[in-house]
């Protein structure tokens, strides 16, 4: 059990039976008055964001969440299907739950699925993934200046900036935490 003074950014707590993460936090106290704990909360199931202010002495249940190693199988109408390689248990995450993460998913990729009971509510991708550039403007001869970037599209449809020497068909490494280009990958 947490109390008001434990509240901080990143803490995951239960509100009305659903897990919430504190995305913004501030402590405030009008002169001589009661302390207030101002939270910006995100419902980890619906994704909705809202503000709520608590006073001292309130109690909060930690959100019972578990991360499980799973493998990405395929996508169907219901969503993205992942499987626990040990138990063969499958979970389906709807598209909106994945947000932008789906851009970086490739078949059989090992990810961590965040579970709330038997419900998958999010994934953690590997920090780096390799994906192929499907569209980029051709390299202009003589343009060798460092820091000259151009737009490119990868196989999943994700757009990003790449150095001028990267061309269509190049395998590149992307940092999934920032969505940015890291390096060219030699196959």
């Amino acid at each position, binding site marked *: 059990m947490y109390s008001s003074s434990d509240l901080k950014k990143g803490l995951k707590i239960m509100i009305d039976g659903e897990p919430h993460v504190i995305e913004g936090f*501030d402590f405030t106290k009008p002169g*001589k008055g009661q302390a207030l704990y101002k939270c910006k909360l995100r419902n980890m199931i619906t994704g909705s964001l809202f503000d709520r202010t608590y*006073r001292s002495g309130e109690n909060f249940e930690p959100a019972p969440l578990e991360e499980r190693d799973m493998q990405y199988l395929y996508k169907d109408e219901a969503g993205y299907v992942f499987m626990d390689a040990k138990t063969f248990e499958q979970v389906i995450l709807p598209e909106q739950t994945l947000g932008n993460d789906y851009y970086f998913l490739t078949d059989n990729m090992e990810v961590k699925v965040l579970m709330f009971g038997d419900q998958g509510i999010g994934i953690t991708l590997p920090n780096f993934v390799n994906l192929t550039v499907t569209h980029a403007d051709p390299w202009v001869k003589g343009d060798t200046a460092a820091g000259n970037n151009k737009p490119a599209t990868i196989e999943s449809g994700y757009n990003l900036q790449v150095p001028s020497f990267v061309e269509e068909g190049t395998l590149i490494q992307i940092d999934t935490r920032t969505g940015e280009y890291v390096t060219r990958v030699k196959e």
Partner: protein
Amino acid sequence: MANGPDATRAVRRDNLYARARIIQQIRAFFITHTYLEVETPHRIPCNAPEEYIEPVPSVDAFLHTSPELCMKRLLAAGYPKLFQLCRCWRSAERGTRHLPEFTLLEWYASHSDYSDLMYTCEELLCHLVPTGTLAWQGSTISIQPPFERIPLAQAFTRYAPMPLDDAIAADCFEETYTEHVEPRLGIAAPVFIYDYPAKMAALARTKADAPHLAERFELYIGGMELANAFTELTDAYEQRQRFNTALETIQPPNPHHLMPEAFLAELEQMPPSAGIALGIDRLVMLLTDTAEIDAVVAFTPEEL
């Protein structure tokens, strides 16, 4: 990388230089105005019992939450004008404008009241902002006396969705104040909010013509509370009653709150006086256009 660690370090470096200059200017101001600079013990047997201020224990005593009790004992001992710049400690106060260890400027003057303190605030701010304008979070604040003076009840009428009395009755004073009133105070120019319900000012004198109100004010600039002041209560009997009420109200009973007997014993000798506490960290934030208190101190508690 606008917000990388190097940029953060550079901002803090500039702010620490500014902080030193500001403290030197404050000292010069009070010395010029014939205030005596004093140092009182930071570790004391007990603080004034206040419902929402939790002292930090230190072996068999407590760190002071404010130097006010010792400052007033010096007034009682006959020192007419005093100031102190010191560290204070309040347990579990940590936010973008709060540190559990912070720096207060307090000054006291005998034979004066809270309206005199408002003038001194105006003079001090003008001394610190000689250009008369202050850049604050993308807007400009005019620092020109006189600052606007608004009774607390009127500030509620002006900015809050309900009157002050209703907010108190509905037990949502703090929420209403911080949500609707405070962010709108002192935006174009500083403002004094004055005359608080007597219950919100346990060490202040009540108004002769309106005993439900206390002679207390707060100074706001840029939506930020900078200072809290009052005409001091000098009636030891009434002060003891108010402390008793506070001790009874604090639930669950807290062994960190005790009756400050030495202070009460000398209070009768204290001449009519007024005193104020001004947060130095927040003042530095304001004068350096810095939104987070972390960037105006050498170390935050988390960095230790």
